């Protein structure tokens, strides 16, 4: 899922300083699962902002709503009848959701309340680890199911480099070396031959904005 973290409170407060009526829009998908932008977090943020603005003698009127998904136009229509009542929208969705909300309501300032952080997995309650950089050309088949593009601090394709230290990365003693793990896993599976071959230079797939139409839907796309 997409993992995000809430922006520092002061940063959010500063963004809203000129507005008196704002709708906070949560998202019920990834950011709700990672406990940062769902219905509950919308409520908490609004309570904190109301309190802070009251103390400052500059009260703010905050609305709250949480959409099923902000990255899907059909769910954004729900706001159609309420948007006009607000000066600005404060989105708690990931960067994709925030941009779709801004595109759907182009006359309203749309402000981010979270920093989109990574594509990750849930290690434990409230604990997430980055797992994928969406490079567009998956190597997991020959790297023992461990992504070097994401997990190796240098994104090496022919690792491990000479900085491995007790099985950890040179950047930190608590950061496992991705290539050390890849080696160990493939050795245990008897598949080390997969990383013995020289891996040629990568043709990067993520250096320009990407659009994807699944093959089954191409026709509809052409028909417009």
């Amino acid at each position, binding site marked *: 899922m997409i993992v995000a973290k809430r922006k520092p409170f002061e940063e959010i407060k500063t963004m809203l300083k000129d507005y008196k009526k704002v709708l906070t829009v949560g998202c019920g998908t990834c950011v709700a699962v990672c406990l940062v932008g769902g219905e509950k977090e919308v409520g908490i943020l609004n309570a904190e902002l109301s309190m802070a603005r009251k103390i400052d003698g500059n009260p703010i009127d905050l609305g709250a709503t949480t959409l099923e998904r902000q990255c899907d136009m059909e769910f954004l229509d729900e706001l159609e009848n309420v948007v006009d009542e607000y000066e600005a929208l404060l989105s708690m969705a990931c960067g994709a959701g925030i941009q779709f909300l801004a595109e759907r309501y182009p006359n309203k300032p749309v402000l981010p309340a979270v920093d989109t952080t990574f594509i990750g997995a849930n290690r434990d309650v409230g604990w997430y680890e980055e797992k994928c950089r969406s490079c567009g050309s998956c190597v997991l088949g020959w790297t023992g199911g461990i992504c070097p593009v994401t997990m190796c*601090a*240098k*994104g*090496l*394709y*022919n*690792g*491990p*480099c*000479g*900085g*491995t*230290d*007790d*099985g950890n990365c*040179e*950047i930190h003693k608590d950061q496992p*070396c991705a290539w*050390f793990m890849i*080696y*160990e896993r493939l*050795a245990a599976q008897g598949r*080390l031959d997969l990383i*013995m*071959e*020289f*891996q*040629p*230079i*990568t043709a*990067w797939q993520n250096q320009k904005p990407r659009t994807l139409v699944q093959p089954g839907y191409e026709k509809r796309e052409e028909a417009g």
Partner: protein
Amino acid sequence: MKSGSNLEKVLEAGHFAFTGELGPPRGTSAEEVREKAQHLKGMVDMVNITDNQTAVVRMSSWAACLILIQEGLEPNFQMVCRDRNRLAMQADILGAYTHGVRNMLCLSGDHCMFGDHPDAMGVFDIDSIQLINMVKTMRDEGKFQSGGDIEDPPKIFIGAAANPFAEPYEWRVHRLGKKINAGVDFIQTQCIYNMDRFRKWVKQANDMGLTEKVYILAGVTPMKNVGMARYMQKKVPGIEVPEELIDRLKGVGKKKVADEGIKIACEQIEEFKEMKGVHGVHMMAIEWEHKVPEIAERAKVLPRPKV
């Protein structure tokens, strides 16, 4: 001859190579480079010029290489994958070659977070083994990485690093094999202190026939004092300093530690001269360039061969 560099000629002729290292200044003083270079003149076959080592910004490696050439020394242009994409790399290779650079060392590079710009984006468009292959393709096929033709291709003697002291140990000799397959001509190893581990690594490389396909220069850095030894042991990733070595330095009394450090280095060099599969020594006398003449003398590697 692949490049006709002095190092290549020395190695081809079967001499035991002796190479040095020089770190460019954090500023614009050509004088500082010349001063360091003077200590190395006639003492080594070639001088590595580091490339933003430990991720700290310095005068660019190729620029300092040109000063070395002006001073009559042969440089080894170090290039890390951290700071340049494939376009910048190939452009710098063409430019450096045009100005007389004939050796290169292809490295991954220390991570940005070690240096003075820890928030910088690490490029790593390609990795060090891919860099080796790119330089080889430029040299032998006269092609850019994109496949386009190069007019008057650069003839570079291609070097890379090897670290026998980083886990997984069993992997290290295979990584050497990958570098050979990618097209490397010579290897300079990480600083060696654990001789046992190094002997095992070379034996493995000999057994696999790798040392017949590549020249291996053993990395040596004399310890200046006990603090340095402790620092290398505890803080530098991928360097292994045995406790016995520190005990030996401590045992000689404070004033004689530097001398003992050189003595240990010379003993290592004597062993490397006899070691099957080792073709020379890379002397990394870090900020100790002025000591290289004394070290070379005591290591009995002088005079350097004229080839």
